[in-house]
């Protein structure tokens, strides 16, 4: 298992699951918060990845 993207997605999934369950009591709210966190983590990784693409200048 050496795919960077797969590991990134797996890590984001596990971390967002724990945070969502910690922060919310209601299962629907947990699902919504977890989905938002997961997409935020993965999305931010892609955005920063592309922003750093031209570096070093």
């Amino acid at each position, binding site marked *: 298992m050496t795919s960077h993207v797969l*590991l990134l997605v797996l890590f984001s999934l596990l971390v967002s699951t724990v945070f969502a*369950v910690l922060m919310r009591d209601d*299962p629907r709210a947990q699902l919504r918060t977890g989905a938002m966190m997961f997409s935020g983590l993965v999305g931010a990784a892609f955005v920063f990845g592309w922003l750093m693409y031209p570096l070093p200048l």
Partner: protein
Amino acid sequence: MSLKSTTAERAREESEPGTLALVCLAAWALPGAGHLWLGRRQKAFVFMAVLPIMFAIGLMLQGRIFPFEFGEPLVVLAAVADIGLGLPWLAARLAGAGQGTVTAVTYEYGNCFLIVAGLLNFLVILDAFDVAKGRK
């Protein structure tokens, strides 16, 4: 009438100091055990599944369970984070797992999974403490 379960609605009575310590100890030793003790079964089962899985993935990725080398402050911090997972950490140490293969492509990923699993369990312990104190 709202169906949402708020912290105010679910507030419970504060536990005795001895019980508080035992809840925290249980939560440290086995991720989710503190929540199970306090009757938060849904949360407990999620923590019991996710945190050890994260730790196991870290080991599979050839991450290192850091020792307490006081000459290396960052290694000590990583060791403190690793120890957060309690019995899985102890079992891995006793089994000689988590030696870490620096040359492995996934070494840093493994460390990340191991360290974050331990740190997340510290948050879970704090949450169990809050629940036991009656704050949640």
